[in-house]
């Protein structure tokens, strides 16, 4: 998970929380608890979205275990290989020469030579000063039919402006070539799972002769290049902002923030902005009415049941919480590891106006002590991290807003909340089914 704040943020959070007597110290830096429900796509699964690519991790063997097993769980292990380095390779500087030999051996060993080789290095590389530009150039000279790009699986930089999630998005889209041709397509970037085509966005844009493109639409690297001809990038996650900026500079593609939200006003503002940028008329009012009705119906059905929300389920937990609170839902618990800049307003609103809402740092060491007896079945949980902590069986099975967007996303979230409130599930099986990678 990305942290958008450094020390300044910790101080900010402490100040905010102390004044309101809510778990202030929990956002301070502590040793981290890694719950069994912690994880997501990991860099391997996201990188595997790039068609006709292969990943070669160059690292001590241990660094690759979670990615390899996570890759196997998700059916992509055949596109991930490893070059293990040991202490003598690091000390002797033989590391770079080993890569040349390994790439040759890899290309004759795998069934099909990739169009792109993603050379992943781990935290260690940040301390070694490897000349990746020269390395990739030399590799490209030898294998002119393959593009080589260095990627970083370096959580050691999670507190910087360039954590692995952000650099990976940039690496993927930096492979797009500039084209003089511009077509009436719009890219969706930053989301791993494509938005459901049931979302009104597809129909609205189709009515104005725009088509949407997503990384998962392509099975070949050359087809993927068509994203470089698009008119606009809709940036669905903050992790893709940097990639969008690079694409604007290199390819001239403008971008618009479109982070998934369940706040009706924010959705409306997004459609108004989109309408202005594309100079088209977007009629969203009917969808807005349907979404609001879905919220009111869900509130009626769910009643006063306490609700918990976690940061792995949705990108903007405070914004979702604020929306639900405004409509009278009993949001009682929010679990997150940070408050992102884009959520400061929602966070302040909740802290100032809803003092009964508890805010827990999901990775604080105290979270290792589950409140099984205290919390058992008390909450309707949005996300399995809060479900694990509270031992809940009423769980909305959602991670990272997958597939949701716009008014459709609101309606779908309400449907899932109602369904979760009516049924009970086996959390362990749900987590296993999510095939999480750290």
């Amino acid at each position, binding site marked *: 998970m990305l942290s958008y704040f450094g020390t300044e943020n910790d101080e900010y959070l402490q100040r905010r929380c102390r004044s309101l007597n809510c778990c202030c110290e929990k956002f301070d830096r502590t*040793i981290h608890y*890694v719950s*069994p429900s912690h*994880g997501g796509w990991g860099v391997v699964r996201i990188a595997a979205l790039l068609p006709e690519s292969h990943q070669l991790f160059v690292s001590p063997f241990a*660094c690759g275990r*979670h990615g390899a097993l996570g890759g196997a769980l998700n059916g992509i292990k055949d596109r991930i290989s490893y070059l*293990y380095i040991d202490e003598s390779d690091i000390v002797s500087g033989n590391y770079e020469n080993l890569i040349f030999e*390994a790439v040759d051996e890899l290309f004759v060993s795998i069934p099909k030579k990739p169009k792109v080789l993603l050379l992943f290095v781990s*935290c260690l590389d940040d301390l070694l000063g490897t000349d990746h530009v020269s390395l990739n150039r030399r590799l490209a000279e030898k294998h002119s039919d393959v593009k080589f790009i260095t990627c970083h699986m370096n959580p050691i930089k999670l507190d910087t402006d360039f954590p692995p999630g952000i650099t990976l998005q940039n690496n993927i889209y930096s492979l797009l070539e500039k084209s003089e041709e511009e077509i009436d397509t719009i890219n969706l970037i930053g989301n791993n799972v494509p938005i459901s085509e049931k979302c009104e966005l597809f129909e609205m844009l189709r009515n104005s002769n725009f088509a949407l493109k997503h990384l998962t639409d392509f099975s070949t690297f050359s087809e993927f290049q068509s994203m470089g001809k698009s008119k606009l990038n809709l940036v669905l996650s903050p992790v893709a902002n940097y990639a969008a900026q690079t694409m604007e500079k290199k390819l001239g593609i403008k971008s618009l923030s479109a982070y998934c939200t369940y706040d009706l006003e924010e959705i409306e503002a997004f459609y108004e902005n989109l309408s202005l940028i594309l100079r088209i008329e977007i009629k969203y009012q009917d969808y807005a009415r349907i979404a609001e009705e879905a919220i009111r119906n869900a509130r009626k059905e769910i009643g006063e049941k306490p609700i918990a929300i976690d940061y792995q389920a949705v990108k903007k937990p405070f914004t979702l919480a604020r929306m639900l609170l405004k409509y009278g839902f009993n949001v009682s618990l929010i679990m997150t590891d940070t408050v992102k800049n884009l959520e400061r307003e929602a966070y302040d609103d909740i802290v100032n106006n809803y003092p009964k809402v508890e805010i827990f740092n999901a990775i604080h060491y105290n979270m*290792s002590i589950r409140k099984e007896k205290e919390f058992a079945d008390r909450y309707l949980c949005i996300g399995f991290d809060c479900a694990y902590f509270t031992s809940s069986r009423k769980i909305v099975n959602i991670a990272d807003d997958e597939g949701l967007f716009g008014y459709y996303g609101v309606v779908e979230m309400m449907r899932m909340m109602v369904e979760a409130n009516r049924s009970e599930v086996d959390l362990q099986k749900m987590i296993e089914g999510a095939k999480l990678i750290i």
Partner: protein
Amino acid sequence: MSKLCISLPPFAPDYSGAASALFEMGGLVVIHDASGCTGNYTGFDEPRWFGSNSLVFCSGLRHMDSILGNDDKFVRMIVEAAEEFQPKFIAILGSPVPMVIGTDFKGIAMEIEAETGIPTMGIATNGLNYYGAGIGSATIELLKMFVKEKKPTVSNSINIVGMTPLDFHVNYNKEDFVELFENAGISVRSCYSMGSNLESIQNSTESALNVVVSQAGIGIAEYLKKKFDIPYVAITPLGDGELALNRVKAAFSDQENTYVPRVENADTLIVGEQIIGNSLREYLQEKCHYGAIEVATLFDVSEQWQSRGDIAVKDETHLRQILNGGKYRTVIGDPMIKQLIRDKKVNFYEFSHVALSGKLHWNENKRLLSNETQEWLEKIN
């Protein structure tokens, strides 16, 4: 394992082994890493993690901290948590980045111990060694810290050593092993790495014999032999358990009972962990009248337990060469090994191992003392 690895996953590393060995001991364990190393352990190498309240944490090491050598922050965070939990001990484990920056784990441990008054150990695991090395070093540190003197020996008593979830999962193998010996009138004082606590480890010096059931236990048994003069045998109970019981009884009566396997012209290969592999071979040959078998060890190897023809696998390329050299018509190993075999006529028998395939196959781990496993062994041809 070294160099290019195309198909197999990296195996469980030393810090997973160390954390696993200390899991049930009531300590506070901190892996000094950014997040991925702890994620390896909690996500893929620790079958007991779900629902557990064990105190295993990640230090959340960051770039500037490693460049500046900001160990004070690390110490402060651990002291803060330790003051709240009041654990029986604290263990700090290393990972690749601390290895490169030369983190002084012993020094940090001394500082934490001075501040908290809680016994603290620093173990410089580095992600370049296998899980067995971590299990060995963590357990020996624990013994050095808490077991100073030998208690009077209780006859007919044993410790089971090397009973690790990374080798045996948590599917009743530990309970079955203990029951096998207890039912035969042999008292099990302690079961190292699973089903123990600090008290039982402290009582383990009462035992007359250590029964090492996996290679991860060899170093521990050697330490106990040297320090407390407790001898050991190395065998994993399988099938009806008779061979393991006979080995232990022979050791109690000082009889020679070492097994010399048939390896001449072997066309069967067991790929996996050394002591379990040796025990599978012995069972197949002694109880199922099987012919010559060789054992190829993927993880750490103890030379004294290798037979002629046995192989210490260097890397995946080496393993491919072994498996595809045309020598073996039958292979027993983790399901992930099968993909390396080109000849589809080779008989492959699945025997999953947590330190290789982790959660992918750990639910398929065999219950070794069971009719089902006995039947499985009898069908191998």
